[in-house]
C-alpha cells in the first residue's frame, strides 16, 4: 500500500512535487475535455488540488492492486467532476494517459459521471447528486465493521460533494446519519466554488453558513483555501487526528472540510463563471489555458 498515512505536514520538496502533480492533472483534464469540445470544466478545475493532495499524499491505495480490500475508498459524489478524477487516476497510474482522450466518446470507459463498473480506481458510481454522499457513509460504516488494518491504521472513506449539490435533501439525511453513527473514518470535502448551473449559489439557493451547518449536524468542521496545497495538507492532517470528543471505542465525529475554491480555476476565460459548469472547450481554449498555466510555471 502506498501513501503511508503521513504524521507530519508536507516538506517543501513534497509540496513542490504536489504542485507538479496538480498541474499535470489540470492539464490532462483540460486536454481530455478539449478532445471532445465540451465538458464539465468548472467543477473539475475546482477540485484538482484536493485530488492531488489525496491521491499523492493522504489516501492509502495501490494502483497495482486496485481492488485491494485494504485500500481507502474515494467517492466523488459530485460525479460530474469525473474528468478531474480520471486525470488524477491516470497521473497515479490506474489508467493510461491516452485513454483520457476517449472521455465521453461512445464506448469509452470514462463516462461524464464516475462509474465504478467501467473505470479502474473508481469506488462508487455517482452523478445523481446527493447519492454518492450517502453511499460514502455506507462505505465508511462497512470499512469500520472490518476493524483497523493489520498495521493498526484506520480504513478511511473520502468523499467530495459540491456546494450546489448541498441543495439536495439527501446530503442532510446522510449528514445526520454519519454523525449519529460516529463515522470518524469518513473525511468529506465540500467544493465551495460558489456557482451552480443556473448561477451563483447565493442567488439560486442560498444555503447560508455551510461551516455552521456541518458543525450543528455534529461534524468536525474545517475551512480552507482549496487551491493552497500546504493548507490543504495540514487541514487533512487535522481532520485525521484523533477526535478529542471520541468515545471509549475511539469513535468520533466525521470530518467536513469546506474548500473555498474558484470554479474553472486555471482557465482564465471561464474562472468564476456559472457558464463554466458545462462549457464548450476546444483546442483554442486549451491552448489559451495552457499558456496561462505556463506563465505561472513552465510547461514541463
Amino acid at each position: 500500500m502506498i501513501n503511508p498515512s503521513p504524521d507530519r505536514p508536507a516538506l517543501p520538496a513534497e509540496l513542490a512535487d504536489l504542485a507538479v502533480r496538480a498541474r499535470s492533472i489540470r492539464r490532462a483534464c483540460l486536454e481530455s475535455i478539449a478532445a471532445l469540445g465540451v465538458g464539465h470544466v468548472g467543477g473539475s478545475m475546482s477540485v484538482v488540488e484536493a485530488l492531488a493532495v489525496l491521491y499523492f499524499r493522504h489516501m492509502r491505495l495501490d494502483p497495482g492492486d486496485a481492488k485491494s480490500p485494504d485500500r481507502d475508498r474515494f467517492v466523488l459524489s459530485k460525479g460530474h467532476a469525473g474528468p478531474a478524477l480520471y486525470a488524477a487516476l491516470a497521473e497515479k497510474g490506474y489508467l493510461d494517459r491516452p485513454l483520457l482522450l476517449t472521455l465521453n466518446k461512445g464506448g469509452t470507459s470514462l463516462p461524464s459521471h464516475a462509474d465504478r463498473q467501467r473505470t479502474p480506481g473508481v469506488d462508487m458510481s455517482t452523478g445523481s447528486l446527493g447519492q454518492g454522499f450517502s453511499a460514502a457513509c455506507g462505505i465508511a460504516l462497512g470499512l469500520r465493521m472490518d476493524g483497523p488494518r493489520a498495521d493498526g491504521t484506520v480504513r478511511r472513506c473520502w468523499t467530495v460533494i459540491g456546494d450546489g449539490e448541498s441543495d439536495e435533501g439527501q446530503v442532510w439525511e446522510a449528514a445526520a446519519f454519519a454523525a449519529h453513527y460516529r463515522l470518524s473514518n469518513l473525511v468529506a470535502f465540500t467544493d465551495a466554488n460558489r456557482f451552480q448551473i443556473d448561477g451563483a449559489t447565493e442567488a439560486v439557493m442560498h444555503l447560508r453558513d455551510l461551516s455552521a451547518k456541518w458543525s450543528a449536524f455534529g461534524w468536525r468542521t474545517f475551512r480552507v483555501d482549496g487551491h493552497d496545497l500546504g493548507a490543504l495538507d495540514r487541514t487533512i492532517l487535522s481532520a485525521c487526528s484523533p477526535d478529542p470528543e471520541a468515545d471509549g471505542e475511539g469513535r468520533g465525529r466525521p470530518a467536513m472540510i469546506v474548500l473555498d475554491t474558484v470554479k474553472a480555476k486555471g482557465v482564465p476565460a471561464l474562472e468564476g463563471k456559472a457558464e463554466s459548469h458545462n462549457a464548450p472547450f476546444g483546442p483554442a481554449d486549451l491552448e489559451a489555458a495552457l499558456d496561462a498555466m505556463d506563465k505561472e510555471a513552465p510547461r514541463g
Partner: protein
Amino acid sequence: MADREMRAVYAQTLTALAASDRRICVVEADLARATGTGPFAKAYPDRFFNVGVAEANLVGVASGLSAAGKRPFAATFACFASRRAYDQFFLSANYAGLEVVLVGTDPGVTAAFNGGTHMPLEDLALMRAVPGLAIVEPADPVSLEAAVKLALERKGCTYLRLQRKPAPEIYGAGEAFEFGKAKLLRPGKDVVLAALGALMVGEARKAADSLAAEGIDAAVVDVFTLAPLDRAVLLDLARKTGRIVTCENHRVTGGLGSAVAELLAEEGVPARLARIGAGADEFGEVGTQDWLAERFRLTAPHIAAAARRLVKGV
C-alpha cells in the same frame, strides 16, 4: 400449527443466516418495529443500523455497505421503497452493479388502515423497469425463506415484496426454489390462474376450487418471481389452455398482467387474457384488507368470474 407471520419468518431467516455469514447487515428507516427485525438487532447489534425517517439515505447507505463488501437487507414500506427511493435504488444500487436487497413491506391492499398514501399499487411497475433486478413476492413462509437465501446468493439486487401478516404454508419444508422458476400448484386444462404473492395465490387457489365445482378445470401457478419471469411455464400453459388470468395485488398497469400481455403478444400465442388488479386509473384508499380486496376486485369470486368469462367466451 398456526400460520406463521411472514415478517417473523423474514427476521428469523436473516438472523439464522447471519450466524455463518458475517457480511449480512440490516438497515431500517424507523420501521424496524413494523418489519419485525428486532430479533436480528438483538442478536447482531453491530450489524443493525437505523437511519431514521430517511428512505433516500436508507438505500444510499445500503449501497455503500454493499460497495464495502457487505450484504445489506434494507426495508421500508413498499410505497417508500419504490416511489420515494426509486432513483437511489436505480442508480446507487442497480446501475452501480451492487448487491442490495430492498424489502418493500405492506404491498397493495395489505397497507389497509394506512390508506391511499401508503398503498403501493405501482411498485412492481417501477421495479420491472430496472434492468437486471430480481423481483420476488413469496406465496408462503417456506418460499419466503428460500427467497431470502436466493437473494443473498444472487449477483445483483433483489426487490423482495413482503406482506407482513401470517400466510398458510403451501410448500413442504425442503421444497427447492429458483428465481425465474414458477411453481405449478395445480394442473388444469381450461384456464390458467397465474398469481403473485401470498394474498393472490391464496385467492387464486380458492377460485380454482369454486371453478372446479362448476366443471371448469383451472391451473394455478405461483409466479414467485415477476423478474426474471418464467416465460417457459407461462407460455406452455397459455398454449395448452388458450386462456390466462393474471392475479396481482397491484394496479393492472406495468406489473404481472402487463408482463404476461407482452409475452403472449411477442410470442404470438393466441390466448385470451384477463388481468385481476386495481384499475389503471384507481388510487388506493383506506379500509380493512378484506374490504379493500373486494373494493379492488382481487378476491376469489372476481378471479373465478374472469376465468368463467374467458372459458364461456362471453
